C-alpha cells in the first residue's frame, strides 16, 4: 500500500448526507420513545385520574398531533442531523469573524455535567448553593481584574441582552438625575455590532450612527458635532468589526462624559486585548464580555450564552438583581440594589457558562490570558498578510497591523469575475470550512470577516488561506465551479427569495407545509 502524498492544499471533503426525513415522517402509530415515571396505584386510588379536576372548558380534547417514534429511531434521527452539522469542533472556524470561535476545552464540558451543578434549583437556600455562588463570585473577581470594572452581573444571557441591560441602566441613571426626558439619544458607530443600535432603540432611544473617517477610525469630529445635552450614552465596540482599534478612545469617552452621557463598551471582541488594555483606563462606565466568545463557552447553535456585564462602583446599584456578595466567609445573593433596572432574565442567568468561563480563566492564569491575546493577534496579522496576497482580495482602511480580526473585501474579485462573497461562502462549504458574509449594512463591499483566534495552528490557518486562494483562482479561471457550489454539501442551493420572503410560500412549521402543499396538490 502506497503512502498518501499530501500535496493537495485543500481537503477532499464531503459533508454527511443522510437524506433524513422530517421527524413527522417517522411517525409509526403505537411506537413510543420513552417510558415515563408511572403514577403510584395508591395515588391513583386516592385522587382518581387527576385530569377530571380540570374545568371542562380547559381540558384538551384531542392529543397533540406529535409523531410516535421508538427511542432508537429518535436517537438515530438526531444523530444524523448532528452529523449534517459542521460544528466548530470539526472545522477551522475562522470564517465566523466577530464571534471568536475557539477551542472548547472538554474538561469544562465534563464539569458542567456534574449533578452538583445541573441539579441545583435557583431558589434553594443559600447555604446549599455555596459552591455555585463561590464560582459566580470568583468569576466576578477575575472579570473585575480583566476589565478594571468594580462589579459584574452574569444575569444577561447574551451579548445582545447585556447591551439591552446597559441601555436600561443608562435610562435609569438619567431618570434618577431627572434628565430622563431630556437625554434621548444614544451614539454608536456603524462598525459596531447591530445589537448596539437595536437594543438602545428598544429602550426608546434615538440612534445616532457615526461613520468612520477615510482610514476606518471612528470620526472624532463627527462625535463632537453630535454630542449635546440630549446625549444619554455612547456605545461602541473597540476594536470594531474591522479589527481596527480606535486610539482616541479615551478622548471619545471624555467628550461624552463632558456632555453628561455614559459610555458603555461592547467587549464581545476582547480576545486580542486580554491583559493588554482595559475598559477602565479607556474611560468606560460599563462593559460586557461574551462568555461564549472570549471565554470559551460553546456557542450551542446560538445559545444559551452569557453577556457578563461589568460596571463601575457608581453604577452598582443599577445592576439587575441579585448579584453575589461575600462577607465573613459566606456567599450570599444581594437583592436590594437601590436603583436596580429589575431583571433582564429570570433568576441568575446561565450558570453553566459562568462555570465554563471560570474554569477557562483558571486553566490559563494571567500569563495564559495574555498569550491568548498575543497569539490571536499574531494569527490574525499572519492571515492578513496572506489573504491580501490573494488575487481579488482586499481590506479597506488603514494599512499596517490589525488586532484580532479583519473585515476584508472581494470587491475587486467581484468586479473582475462576477463571483460574489455569497458564492464564495457556498464554495467554502465544499472544503469543510465555514465562511460568513458579515453584517448588514454592507459598507465594505463583498465583505468577509476572518477571526483566527488563538486556537488554530499555523497549519490550520494555511489550510483556510489555501481554500480562499483556490477559490480565487477558480473565480478567475472557471467561475462556474464557484457559482454552482456547493458540490459536496448535504443539499444543493436553496431557493431563497421565492420561498423565504414570500408569505404565500413560506412554511415556518411542518403543519403549514402540509396545508400549503395539500392546497397546491388540490389545485393542480
Amino acid at each position, binding site marked *: 500500500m502506497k503512502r498518501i502524498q499530501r500535496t493537495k492544499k485543500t481537503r477532499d471533503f464531503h459533508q454527511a448526507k443522510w437524506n433524513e426525513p422530517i421527524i413527522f415522517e417517522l411517525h409509526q402509530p403505537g411506537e413510543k420513545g420513552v417510558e415515563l415515571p408511572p403514577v403510584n396505584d395508591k395515588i391513583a386510588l386516592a385522587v382518581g385520574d387527576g385530569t377530571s379536576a380540570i374545568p371542562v372548558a380547559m381540558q384538551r380534547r384531542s392529543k397533540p398531533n406529535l409523531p410516535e417514534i421508538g427511542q432508537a429511531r429518535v436517537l438515530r434521527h438526531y444523530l444524523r442531523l448532528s452529523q449534517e452539522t*459542521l460544528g466548530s469542533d470539526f472545522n477551522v472556524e475562522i470564517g465566523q469573524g466577530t464571534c471568536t470561535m475557539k477551542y472548547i476545552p472538554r474538561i469544562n464540558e465534563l464539569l458542567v455535567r456534574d449533578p452538583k451543578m445541573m441539579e441545583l434549583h435557583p431558589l434553594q437556600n443559600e447555604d446549599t448553593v455555596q459552591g455555585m455562588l463561590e464560582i459566580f463570585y470568583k468569576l466576578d473577581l477575575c472579570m473585575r481584574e480583566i476589565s478594571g470594572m468594580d462589579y459584574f452581573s452574569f444575569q444577561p444571557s447574551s451579548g445582545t441582552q447585556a447591551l439591552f441591560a446597559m441601555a436600561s441602566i443608562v435610562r435609569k441613571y438619567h431618570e434618577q438625575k431627572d434628565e430622563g426626558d431630556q437625554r434621548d439619544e444614544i451614539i454608536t458607530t456603524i462598525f459596531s455590532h447591530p445589537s448596539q443600535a437595536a437594543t438602545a432603540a428598544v429602550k426608546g432611544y434615538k440612534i445616532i450612527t457615526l461613520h468612520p473617517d477615510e482610514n476606518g477610525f471612528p470620526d472624532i469630529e463627527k462625535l463632537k458635532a453630535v454630542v449635546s445635552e440630549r446625549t444619554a450614552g455612547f456605545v461602541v465596540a473597540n476594536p470594531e468589526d474591522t479589527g481596527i482599534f480606535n486610539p482616541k478612545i479615551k478622548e471619545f469617552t471624555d467628550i461624552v462624559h463632558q456632555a453628561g452621557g455614559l459610555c458603555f463598551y461592547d467587549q464581545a471582541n476582547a480576545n486580542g486585548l486580554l491583559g493588554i488594555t482595559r475598559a477602565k483606563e479607556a474611560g468606560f462606565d460599563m462593559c460586557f464580555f461574551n462568555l461564549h466568545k472570549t471565554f470559551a463557552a460553546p456557542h450551542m447553535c446560538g*445559545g444559551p450564552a452569557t453577556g457578563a456585564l461589568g460596571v463601575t462602583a457608581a453604577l452598582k446599584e443599577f445592576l439587575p438583581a441579585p448579584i453575589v456578595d461575600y462577607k465573613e466567609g459566606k456567599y450570599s445573593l444581594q437583592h436590594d440594589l437601590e436603583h436596580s433596572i429589575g431583571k433582564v432574565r429570570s433568576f441568575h442567568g446561565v450558570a453553566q457558562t459562568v462555570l465554563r468561563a471560570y474554569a477557562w480563566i483558571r486553566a490559563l492564569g494571567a500569563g495564559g490570558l495574555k498569550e491568548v491575546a498575543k497569539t490571536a493577534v499574531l494569527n490574525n496579522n499572519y492571515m492578513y498578510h496572506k489573504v491580501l496576497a490573494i488575487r481579488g482580495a482586499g481590506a479597506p482602511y488603514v494599512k499596517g497591523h490589525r488586532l484580532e480580526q479583519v473585515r476584508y473585501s472581494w470587491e475587486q474579485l467581484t468586479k473582475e469575475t462576477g463571483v460574489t462573497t455569497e458564492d464564495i461562502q457556498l464554495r467554502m462549504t465544499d472544503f469543510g470550512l465555514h465562511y460568513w458574509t458579515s453584517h448588514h449594512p454592507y459598507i465594505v463591499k463583498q465583505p468577509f470577516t476572518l477571526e483566527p483566534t488563538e486556537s488554530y495552528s499555523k497549519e490550520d490557518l494555511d489550510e483556510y488561506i489555501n481554500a480562499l486562494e483556490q477559490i480565487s483562482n477558480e473565480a478567475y479561471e472557471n467561475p462556474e465551479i464557484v457559482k454552482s457550489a456547493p458540490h459536496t454539501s448535504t443539499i444543493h442551493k436553496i431557493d431563497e427569495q421565492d420561498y423565504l420572503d414570500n408569505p404565500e410560500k413560506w412554511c415556518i412549521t411542518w403543519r403549514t407545509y402540509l396545508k400549503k402543499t395539500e392546497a397546491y396538490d388540490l389545485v393542480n
Partner: protein
Amino acid sequence: MSQKVHPYIPNMVPEVQAQMLKVIGAKSIMELYSGIPEELQLKEDLKLPPALTEYELRRHIEGILNKNTSAKEYLNFLGAGCWQHFIPAVCDEINQRSEFLTAYAGEPYEDHGRFQALYEYQSLLAELVDMDVVNVPTFDWGQAAATSIRMAARITGRKKVLLAKTVASERMKIIINYGTPELEFEFVQFDTKSGAMDLADLQEKLTEDVAALYFENPSYLGFIEAQGTEISTLLKANETLMVVGVDPISLGVLAPPSHYGADIVCGDLQPLGMHMNFSGGQAGFIASHNDLKVVNEYPSRLFGIVPTVKEGEYGFGDVAYERTSFAQRENGKESVGTQTALWGITAGVYLALLGPNGMQEVGQTIMQNSQYAAQELNQIAGVTGSRLHSSFFKEFIVDFNQTGYSVEQINQELLKKEIFGGKDLSLEFPEFGQSALFCVTEVHTKEDIDQLVQAIKDILAK
C-alpha cells in the same frame, strides 16, 4: 508561563511564532499592538490566581461544587419558574454532541442538520400549542412574554398593556423593564379565593388604548384560569390582543391557549428536557397563528422549509430575514442575537420521544401527584393543602397561617430533614400571609410526598 506551550494555544511554539512574524515583517508580537496608545497599555500583569493543569482544575472545581447540595440529594419541592422534571437520557445525549454544542451561525449547507433540527422543534412545538408559527427560542419565558407584548403593541398601534396581577414577579420585572419607556402597564386584580381574574376589573380597565392583556395559564400560583373564553370575548370586543404564557408540559392535558382565543402564546421550554442548572436551563418560545401582521412583528429568527435546486431535497433558511435587527440594526423589530437554540433542539428531542401519548401521560401524572400532595398536606392540622379552591397544575399554594410558624421557619426545619420546601410567597403575595408555593411533578414518588407530609407534621408537633 510564556515559556510553556499551553494546550489550548498551539501557536505558542517559539519557532512557529518566529516564522509567522517573519511573514508579517514584525520583530515581536507586541509590535502588532502599536495601534493601542502607550498610556492605555497595561504595565503590569493581571492579578489572577495561578494557572492550573487539567487535573488540578478538575480537583479545584469539583471541590467547590461539592459545597453544593443538589436536588438529587435532597427532596425538592421548589418550582416557581424553574422546575424539576424527568429528563430522558437521549435529550442529554443529543445536546452534548460536539456538532450541536459547538455550532453557531453556519449556513444551511454546512449546518443543514442544525436548521432541520430547529425547524422540527418549531414544528413539534406548534402541534403542542396548536398554532402554525413558532420562533427559534428566545432567552426565557420572561423575555418571550415581553417580546410577545411588544409585538402586540406594534400590531395594534396601542401603548397600554394589562397584566394579570398573578404573573410571576420575576417575569413581571423583565416585562416591565423590556417595555419601559414605550409601554404603560396596569394590573388586573384577581379573586384571592380562586386566583381567577377579576373580569369586572378587566372590563373597567379595558379602554380603547389597550394593546394586550397578558396572563399565565397555568398561573404562576399554579391554578388553572378557567375563564379563557370569557376573557377572549371581552378582549375581542375591544380589539385587544390576548397574550397567554403557558407551561408547555401542561399541554398534554390542558387546552392550549389557542383553543380559547389567544393571539400570541409564549412560555418556557425548560420543562421539556432541560436540567435546572441553577436556572441555566431556561429558554423562551413564542407562537402565533400564521397571520402576516403577526409574523412580520417577530424579532426572532423563524426557520422555514424550502426546496433546493434539486428535486427531492428539503432545504431550510431564515423566513423574512429583513424583519430582524441583524439586517436592519435599530430599524429592525426589537433586537436579536445569540438566544437559546440548543435548548430548542433539546425540547424537540423531548417532544419526539414523548409523542402525543407521553405528553398526555406526563400531564396526568403531574396532576395526580400534585393533587395527592395537596390532599395529604390538607390533612395536617393548621395547614391548608391548597389555599386556592381552583384546580391547579403542578404547583399550589400551601397555607401555614394557622400553624403559628412562618414559612421561613418551616423551610429551615425542612432543610434539616433534607427537603427543599416551597417558595415563600409572603413578600410577593402578602395577601396570602405565610403561604408557600409547592411544586410536585412526575419525578416525585408517593414516598417522597409522604416524607414531606410527615416532615411537616413532625415540625408542627414540636
